[in-house]
């Protein structure tokens, strides 16, 4: 088992290098660099100063040389500094000689995105699981049909539109929830409990919206997994033994139906650090989605590469975790791995 783990971890390194090389090349396929976006159309700027910037950022060198420089920095886990954001460190905070701390861009954007994604994923699971089970048990009857229609509407409705409508309804028509942002003005004067409540109020709509769009996937997955399992021989056996229907459904069927979900959760680990550009823009949340999108538009290469690298590393780790969890949960797989 340990050997298997070490083997997997070892192969991650060349894989990451390969992914980063491809990302780097694709990033440079898009025309333009920071000097084409930052103040590029202001007649007060000059081509000489832009050329100077290109040299300072090594953008005048061949792409492969730039990649080499990047890889060299990365080998010491140095994510570099943003081009567009006043040389802010991309990943983690830095302290200069006078003791001033400059926070990293990912460091600042990550916590809020993680919080929203974890909360909305929990919400999705809490709702999608029972919905999926009910659907499977009432297959093709009214509850199943209405649940399917509901989750599909949630999936298909343009989330920016729904967000705006809900913001109008709960924020302008009725003064129930704040409209955008993370904190009310002057919230720092409140007690800490009131502050947490204030933040939760701000997060209600974003979590609700992203939860609604995510329902369809998981609930249909559970439904189909359940249906599959319910037609298996061992369920018939369990019923034939005269077990109560509840035990059959929740102990024998559901546990087996949930196995494939492990893979889904493993794959959603990198998704936890990716924010939605649309939701973040509408709700004015300074998260990862907006950070990445703005970096792409500004051609802020160190930030793009920083987020991509962390994302791909997490994808690989997520895959590994999913496989391990699978082996832990399913003896059949465990034996296969051991052999």
């Amino acid at each position: 088992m340990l050997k298997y783990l070490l083997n997997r971890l070892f192969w991650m390194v060349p894989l990451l290098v390969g992914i980063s090389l491809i990302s780097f090349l694709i990033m440079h396929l898009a025309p333009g660099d920071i000097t084409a976006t930052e103040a590029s159309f202001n007649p007060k700027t000059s081509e000489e100063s832009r050329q100077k910037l290109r040299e300072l950022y090594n953008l005048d060198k061949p792409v492969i040389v730039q990649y080499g420089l990047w890889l060299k920095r990365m080998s010491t886990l140095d994510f570099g500094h943003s081009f567009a954001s006043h040389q802010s460190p991309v990943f983690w905070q830095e302290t200069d000689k006078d003791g001033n701390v400059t926070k990293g861009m990912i460091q600042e954007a990550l916590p809020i995105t993680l919080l929203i994604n974890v909360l909305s994923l929990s919400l999705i699971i809490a709702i999608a699981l029972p919905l999926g089970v009910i659907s499977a048990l009432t297959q093709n009857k009214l509850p199943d049909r209405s649940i399917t229609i509901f989750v599909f509407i949630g999936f298909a409705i343009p989330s920016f539109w729904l967000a705006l409508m809900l913001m109008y309804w709960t924020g302008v028509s009725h003064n129930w929830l704040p409209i955008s942002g993370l904190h009310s003005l002057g919230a720092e004067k409140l007690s800490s409990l009131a502050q947490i409540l204030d933040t939760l109020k701000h997060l209600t709509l974003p979590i609700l919206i992203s939860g609604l769009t995510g329902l369809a996937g998981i609930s249909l997955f559970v439904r189909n997994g359940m249906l599959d399992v319910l037609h298996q021989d061992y369920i018939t056996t369990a019923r034939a033994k005269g077990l109560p229907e509840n035990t059959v459904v929740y102990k024998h069927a559901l546990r087996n139906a949930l196995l494939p979900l492990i893979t889904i959760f493993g794959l959603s680990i990198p998704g936890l650090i990716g924010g939605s550009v649309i939701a973040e823009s509408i709700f004015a949340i300074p998260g990862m989605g907006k950070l990445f999108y703005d970096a792409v538009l500004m051609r802020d290469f160190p930030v793009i590469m920083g987020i991509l690298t962390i994302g791909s590393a997490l994808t690989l780790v997520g895959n590994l975790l999913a496989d391990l969890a699978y082996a832990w949960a399913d003896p059949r797989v465990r034996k296969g791995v051991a052999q």
Partner: protein
Amino acid sequence: MQQKPKTLKFLLTALFSTLLTTILIGCGQQKTEDAGYLNKTYPSEAGGTLVDALSGEPSGLIAMMAGESSASAIASNIFNSLLKYDKNLELTGELAQSWDVSSDQKTITFHLKPNLKWADGQPLTSEDVLFTWKTVTDDKTRSPYGADYKLVKSAEAPDSNTFKVTYAQPYAPALDSWSGLHILPKHLLKDQDINNTPFSRNPVGSHYYQLDQWKKGESLSLKRNPNTTQGQAKIDHLVSRIIPDRAAQFLELMADNIDSMSLNSIQYARIFPSRPDLTAKIAQYKELGNSYTYLGFNLKHRPFDDVRVRQAINYAIDKQEIIDGVLLGLGLPVASPYKPGTRWSNPKLQPYPYDPHKAIALLKEAGFEDHDHDGILDRDGQPLSFEILTNQNKEREMSAVLVQRRLKEIGIDVKIRVVEWATFISRFIKTGDFNVVLLGWGLGLEPDQFNIWHSSQQAPGQFNFIGYNNPKVDKLLEAGRLELNPDKRMKIYHEFSEILLEDSPVVYLFAGYGLPAIHKRVKGIDDPAPPAGIGHNSYEWYIPTPLRRNEMSAE
């Protein structure tokens, strides 16, 4: 590079906007509280908080280092320049009390106001100005704005109140350039690397306000600077909330969580008039913006090298229709690249009228007729057909559609291509690989537009990318740079605009209005707006005590 089905996208956009507008109008039938108290007159008093919305977050507050408009919007409340533009867009002193130009027009001497201070109490002297000049021209400074200041041959600070710059030859735009350079404190920055100094997030300036608190990604709060060099402002705190989405900003404005934002034309001309509850508490303003939108020809490509073709296209486009359709009437046609109403704009000039017959006649003269009867004009077997290239910007995309339709009526086949900004610049503008672009330029406060129209400015990355080349215009632009006398300069630029209009290297489409909406609790705003816009006297704005927002009511 995407090529979109324009009509479909246009229709969808229109459908969505209509839908949203209807819903917003429909929802409006509710509490119309008595807002009479907002319209009473109140005596001017100090205090209060003004909350506004920013679409993007500044990357730092040293304007010469940060390119974004949000950075200069905030920084201009914190830092001073030597000069500024007054309400009629004439140059006047800010830190400088006066300035003299030597008789050979090469040396400018600025005399600073006495006893200037930084917000931290340290004296602000000509040493600081000299330090700022050295910083912006330093080769290690990662700023794209150094060019104007590098023309200074020598700069000196003979005493603490005098700053003297000498140019190799007279340079008229110099004065404007000194209105755009925020003076930085030497005592705080002299040992710092300007490229990543923490000062950019924690600045010390000399203007009305100083930074109070910066919540990353959320808001920037400013408070009054007790040591201001320009006299005390009335409002105590300025809070700018960062809300990227315009629709969300509008909802916040409706819910009274922010006091001011700039509206788009649908909000201004459709939603507001139908919502008495909004007009009762929010005042709408209109000020001419600082840019114009144009259709620019690649003059190196045929048939745009022929002035008759360019003029024909100019005659064939109905500018008023674009203003009405795209801006809902909230714009002006322009006939020169200068702001109407300022001294540089030549009042004699009129935009080309909409005249399709004249357009057809001019094209015929140039050899274009529909010889093969396919509905499209042709010359020597070549159909008159081209692509309009523009970047992702609603107003520009919609204008392109209207241009396309009008040109089709006289037999010109136009396709539209919309590309993302960085791609647009690197792939098309820099390489000169385009026929016609739909873009915008600034309506300069400084009349010098050498970089845009002079024939020497055509290298890749320079701004005369349409390839305009007229020796007469070159001469005028050179003369305008050497002339510091405003009246003589005015004549030069009036003549320049006249030739430019006749030559028609670009079709001026419109100059749009800026449409700020401000809650009526804010008093002392000039309406109608002077040429400089309503913001010119923002330090005199005040919020009477009874109208102030309850400190913790921002929920």
